[in-house]
């Protein structure tokens, strides 16, 4: 059981390195991107299902039981991801998964000179928009960019681009909310 920050950091780096190396060896950038995408899906599922994470981290269950449970739960994932997740469950390290994803992003940028940028829009992007967005983000980040597109009608229009902790929110909903806040804050207390 890791008790030291450096130990935990080392463990995270180990998990990310194993994932990156295994996926890269198997299918190069595409495989790494797929693993990354599946990791995000797993993180989302664990956040959405309040019973999943406690079950897979149950201290009363034997390590092998947790391993088998994770293998069964994440059997549809890429093989290297499923194996790493099972080991993390066995060691009760699944709560480190978001940090493993960050480490994987770092490895991608470092070793493949590639950054994944999540792009959220209301309508699907066409090639011209993809080119424009890619040019801009590559210029900003100084690395190859892989766009991951999402459709979300709730943003009303515009675009949201994010990678890791960096984020550009140029959505209409964001601008409307900004306008809403400005209008509310600029109230003069009724001295109209």
């Amino acid at each position, binding site marked *: 059981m890791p008790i030291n920050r450096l130990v935990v950091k080392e463990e995270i780096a180990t998990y990310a390195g194993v994932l990156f190396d295994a996926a890269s060896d198997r299918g190069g950038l595409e495989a790494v991107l797929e693993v990354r995408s599946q990791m995000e899906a797993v993180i989302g599922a664990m956040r959405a299902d309040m019973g999943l994470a406690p079950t897979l981290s149950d201290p009363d269950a034997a390590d092998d039981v947790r391993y088998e449970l994770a293998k069964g739960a994440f059997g549809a994932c890429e093989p290297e991801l499923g194996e790493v997740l099972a080991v993390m469950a066995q060691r009760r390290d699944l709560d480190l998964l978001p940090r493993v994803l960050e480490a994987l992003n770092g490895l991608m940028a470092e070793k493949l000179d590639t950054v994944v940028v999540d792009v959220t*829009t*209301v*309508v699907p*992007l*066409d090639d*011209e*928009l993809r080119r*424009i*967005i890619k040019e*801009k*983000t590559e210029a*900003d*980040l100084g690395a190859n960019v892989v766009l991951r597109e999402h459709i979300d*009608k709730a943003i*009303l*229009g*515009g*675009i949201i*681009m994010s*990678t890791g902790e*960096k*984020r*550009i929110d*140029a959505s*209409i*909903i964001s601008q*409307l*909310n900004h*306008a*809403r806040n400005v*209008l*509310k804050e600029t*109230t003069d*207390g*009724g001295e*109209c």
Partner: protein
Amino acid sequence: MKARASKATALGIAAVACLAAFPTAALAAEEEAAGGLSVILPNMLEFVPMLVAFIILWIILAKFGWPMFNGMLEKRENTIREALRKSEEAQIESERTLAEYRKQLADAKAQAAALIAEARETGDAVKAGITEKAHAEAADMIAKAKVAIEAEKKQAIAELQASVVDTSVDVAARLIGEDLTEGEHRKVIERYVKEAGSFNAN
């Protein structure tokens, strides 16, 4: 008193002497006037015993009665004199007491007047204090009420303004979401991407 007793004694002695000095003349006259004066002249046979009895009575009275009477008079006189003296003393005392009472009354009146004046002054001061305090409290309450009213007014206007803003933004959001076509959305995306800041700026 003693002078009066001596005087009475002298008169008695003179009368007895006259009667004793002129018994013959009296008898002669009795005889001469046996016809007329004898009527008014006493009979010696009766007169002498009566005179003796009178003298004896007078001596007894002078010896025993008069001193007793005189003593009673003196006692009465002393009593009256004492009463008068006491009365005078009582009058003097009463006058002194009256004067004292008058002085005390005057002092009491002056003291009462001073107390009343002081009470009036105190009352006026208290009244002024209470009035001033009431005015101050009223002014404070009015000021607080004004502040509260102003705050509530601002709050109400701010809430109304926020409600108007929310409604306006919601309407704008709905209009934008419903009215923009895909092509317009793409134009907006393109413009926003070109105008958006850098990742490095965030």
